[in-house]
């Protein structure tokens, strides 16, 4: 089997691009990364089928001259699967957009609260104690849909109160 160096090079470039994109914070770029990685893998599967030959149709060419039809069937399946996953990811991104009005992958609430806890002193937390309670009461109103995004900010701050006492729990959350 000869190695089609151009295709392998293309696979390498695509993988590089894909890994770069998938490590981005923006979900749209992550999606693009998934697509690029998927295509890189598909090309790799085609390369795995050996050298290119005649179209694998019975009667058109001698069997030995045909290219491998199996890999093409595999790639077709893989493309269909990638299509399904892509559409689902698009739906998720759209959902994130409607919920958060941002494209970035939101941080874990506990991660965020941990950082806030480290950044702000104890005293500051103390003042926000009542705010937390009020925000939550306000949240019972089923119509204040948008309140929730603003409410998310003080809430983790309330978390900070337990920082010294809950050191074990905090450490556990930290590792995640």
């Amino acid at each position, binding site marked *: *089997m000869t190695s089609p160096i151009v295709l392998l090079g293309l696979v390498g470039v695509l993988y590089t691009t894909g890994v770069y994109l*998938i490590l981005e914070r923006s*979900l749209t770029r992550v999606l693009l990364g*998934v697509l690029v*990685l*998927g295509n890189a*893998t598909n090309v*790799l*599967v085609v*390369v*795995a*089928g*050996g050298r290119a030959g005649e179209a694998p149709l019975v009667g058109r060419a001698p069997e030995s001259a045909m290219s491998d039809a*199996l*890999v093409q069937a*595999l790639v077709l*399946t893989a493309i269909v*699967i990638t299509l*399904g*996953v892509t559409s*689902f*990811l698009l739906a*998720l991104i759209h959902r*994130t957009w*409607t*919920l*958060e009005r941002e494209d970035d*992958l*939101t941080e*874990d*609430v*506990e991660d965020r*609260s941990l950082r806030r806890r480290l950044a702000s002193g104890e005293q500051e*937390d*103390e003042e926000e*104690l*009542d705010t937390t*309670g009020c925000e*939550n*009461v306000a*949240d*019972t109103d*089923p*119509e204040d*849909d948008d309140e*929730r995004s603003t409410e*998310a900010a003080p*809430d983790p701050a*309330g*978390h900070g*109160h*337990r920082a010294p*006492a*809950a050191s*074990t*729990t905090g*450490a*556990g959350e930290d*590792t*995640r």
Partner: protein
Amino acid sequence: MNPGSSLLATVIPLPVLLPLLGAGLTLVLARRPTLQRAVSVTVLSAVVVIAALLLVAAVQSGPIVITVGSWPVPLGITLVVDPLSALMLLTSMSVTLAVLVYAIGQGVYDRDETTPITIFHPTYLVLAAGVANAFLSGDLFNLYVGFEVLLMASYVLLTLGGSRSRVRAGVTYVVVNVVSSLIFLVGIALTYAAVGTLNLAQISVRMADVSPGTALTIHLVLLTAFGIKAAVFPLSAWLPDSYPTAAAPVTAVFAGLLTKVGVYSIIRMETLVFPDSDVTRTILLVAAGLTMLVGALGAIAQADIKRVLSFTLVSHIGYMIFGIALATPMGVAGAVFYVVHHITVQATLFCVVGLIEGVGGSTSVTRLGGLARASPLLAILWFVPAINLGGIPPLSGFVGKLGLLQAGVADGSTLAWVLVVVAVLTSLLTLYAVTKVWVLAFWRPADQIPVAEADAPEESEDPDEELPGEQDTSHPEDAGDSRTGLPGAPTPRSGVLTRVRPGTARTLADREANTGAEVDWPVARLAPGESAPVLTGRFLGVAGDRVSRSLPRVMAGATAALVTLGLAITVFAGPLYAIADQAADDLVARTPYVQAVFAQTVDDRVAR
């Protein structure tokens, strides 16, 4: 292979076909919920019966093979039932059925306003079909397709309802799994380039001729892919982040099945395709030890019961990997038995957590208490599988761990001994984690729940919980934990002395105060968009009602059935272990599997 099994061979595709057809049917019956439920229960029951038949046949007469469409072996797709896959199929499908009944009892899918009623049942059946396909596949690419089918279904199930926390968890889950699938596909491409076939039996024969370096590369690529799916330690970080957000029955079935399909694939790879690879054995042993320890330590640090269980899930994957890595018949038998035990126990525990959430309104041990008095039945339902997970002697967890430890000792290498010690330690740590939950949530009287929020009014407790759109487990993250600190320990913070106030959590003592009015559906329906009705505290009844002590019958029944299944594994541990032994012998010997597949070969010219 044997003439008597030719009839049985024809039913092999049914565990895949029936759920898929059922999925179509339930989709058509979208407007008839009762019929929909009947169809899915019937389909899964039929699959359980078929799986039992297949297990009996496979144990008695060796592997049964069918080539779909009667294409000769290397061309067509082969489905293989050997004792291992039949055992996996039977266990997983029984658990799937029980969890389905549980889900019907909970009614997640049709109470949830933002979730289309049509979605749950078809998706669930597709998941079952994917799992069955993965277990039965005798072909690497078909295994990939099985994985993709079950993953697609799991994406949908995980994000059911589309609340913010679930979408967030869903994005992580989907991206991680897509990447692992791509790695798997790379492995498939490399395998095909190296040996020119994707039939597992054929690969196993031809892989012997491949140069060791190439074989190792392929092996490691495939192992990485399956390692992500099975949540083996360095690749397990996605699991505790994503599983706890899903609905209780979804988490239960995920915990029971999805990682085990990965473990199953690792067993197949290690025994059939790459039987003697010292490098990967060492890697797997180290990974197994780390998985056990890190998982168990993570479980201890958590306050939310769902997260505790997610970490024990990761931790106990380590036991199975340990058995597989030993690569002796004893080790593999221990791993196989442990998979069966763990599927059941872990699914049961997640089902119980769903019940706890219903009774207590929370899954965080910092907010629960007095559950044993509130619902003794619930306490029993938790206690039995919990100590089973910890490995208390008469139960199946002990049998599985003992088998693995014996295998480790028999192996005798230094690393194996280290692993034995780690396994015992992990068992103790697991026991500590589940007993902590027991002591805090069940045993502790409700009036001893520490109240950190001294000046928070009682009312704020409920709204906090009923944040529309923040379903189920989201509140332990953003609110639950913020109320109280370290579980059990009264948390004096910032100079404010903690005082204990009776009835903080929604236990029996406090039920009149928590009427559950906020949970009521009409209220939630007012909220547009993502504000799905919150499911917590559902059993507390509607406003003004006195709370009944009884658990919802169907859910409790399904959970009790799972607990009984777990106990049955204990009672019939002898015969079951014999099956596991036979499966392991077959696996390590490799010949039964390979011969059974090649016996189907019509065209010898293409076979070799």
